[in-house]
């Protein structure tokens, strides 16, 4: 009988880390300064009505810090508190951060999405928050700030979070990251199990998972599930992400039209991958991040003229 040697994984996992641990590991050591920290106790005014517990930071950490010596704004959602969902205060903190970025003009923003969407207990306030964030995000981009989304948390990036991700200058995603608007259970409930079987986890990942998102251009970088890999991707995308203007929007429109044209008839991620020329499409989900990135770059380079 052979024994498998014990492998020690020292690199901290993004998926396992809390929002605060992600921020601490992502930025230069000791550089993070929080805005409206937990000691200010700006908690949700709605959750108490439902006898639900509040969190001192309302599930989002916002502030500024340094990334490789350069200033950045950063927001991190805590996916374990109410599924990272957007409420009134949670949303207002992100809106405020993006407005600060708009006024500063050139400082990039990192949004560490980890969200199921809008908090149902404060749905109206949450939906309004998504609208406000979207406007603030685009105003920040128009003023010259790059807005980079980093997605690899346990809640994925769903609902209004998925819409906001679509507004970013660029996205990095890990295997665990999922990006969509309607989640698997929502689709199944509304359209039936024949349309989408939410219990088929392989189907969920083939459709919404990081690898498919990278292959169809929904994310610009695919990264390993480590804080270090997300840091490298953030630095890279701040450099490479496009500025914001009419040309970029036209290129994005063309990219999306072309994508719909190419893949509109595909019923499954596997069909898309085959059509992209991946001979052994079934092997994609099992690939390491390194092998997959090499394959994805060979099949289709990310486009940095659109978004």
């Amino acid at each position, binding site marked *: 009988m052979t024994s498998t040697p014990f492998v020690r994984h020292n690199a901290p996992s993004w998926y396992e880390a*809390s929002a*605060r641990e992600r921020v*601490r590991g992502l930025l230069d050591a*000791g550089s993070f300064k929080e805005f409206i*920290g*937990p*000691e200010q106790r700006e908690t949700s005014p709605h959750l*108490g009505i439902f*006898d*639900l*517990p*509040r*969190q*001192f*930071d309302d599930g989002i950490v916002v502030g500024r810090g340094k990334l490789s010596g350069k200033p950045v704004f950063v927001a991190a959602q*805590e996916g*374990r*508190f109410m599924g990272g969902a957007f409420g009134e205060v949670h949303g207002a903190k992100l809106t405020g951060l993006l407005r600060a970025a708009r006024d500063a003009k050139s400082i990039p923003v990192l949004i560490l999405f980890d969200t199921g969407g809008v908090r149902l207990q404060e749905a109206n306030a949450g939906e309004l928050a998504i609208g406000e964030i979207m406007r603030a995000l685009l105003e920040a981009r128009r003023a010259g700030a790059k807005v980079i989304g980093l997605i690899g948390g346990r809640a994925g990036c769903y609902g209004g979070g998925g819409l906001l991700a679509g507004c970013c200058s660029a996205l990095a995603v890990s295997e665990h990251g999922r990006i969509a608007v309607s989640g698997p259970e929502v689709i199944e409930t509304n359209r039936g199990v024949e349309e989408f079987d939410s219990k088929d986890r392989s189907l969920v990942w083939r459709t919404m998972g990081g690898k498919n998102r990278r292959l169809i251009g929904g994310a610009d970088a695919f990264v390993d599930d480590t804080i270090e890999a997300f840091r490298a991707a953030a630095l890279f995308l701040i450099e490479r992400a496009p500025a914001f203007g009419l040309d970029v929007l036209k290129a994005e429109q063309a990219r999306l039209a072309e994508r719909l044209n190419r893949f509109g008839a595909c019923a499954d991620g596997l069909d898309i991958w085959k059509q992209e020329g991946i001979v052994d499409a079934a092997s994609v989900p099992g690939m390491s991040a390194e092998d997959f990135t090499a394959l994805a770059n060979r099949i289709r380079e990310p486009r940095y003229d659109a978004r």
Partner: protein
Amino acid sequence: METFSYRHKAERRSTGSKAQAIIGVVASGNLEVLVERVLPDTECQVEVSTPITGFGSVWEAVITDFVERRSPGGLKLSINDGGARADTVALRLAQAVRLIEEEGR
């Protein structure tokens, strides 16, 4: 929502100079503890907010034990509970004190 506030005398002042620290998240079976250095050196205060009612005596026992073991003088600890068990509460309280006493993090 049930709230408790406990005030204890601590043996000595908690070490370190950090003003605050936070640990944990408000999720099922979990809790967050915000610890702030805002009290006189031998005072300790613990505030609890929990949606699970009827466990006042357990909270009191866990917190009395915590103050005896860690002597968190000068600290105010505020808890938002998500329905954590007593052992998890004790662990998070210990982590919170350790975090505020640690330098450089």
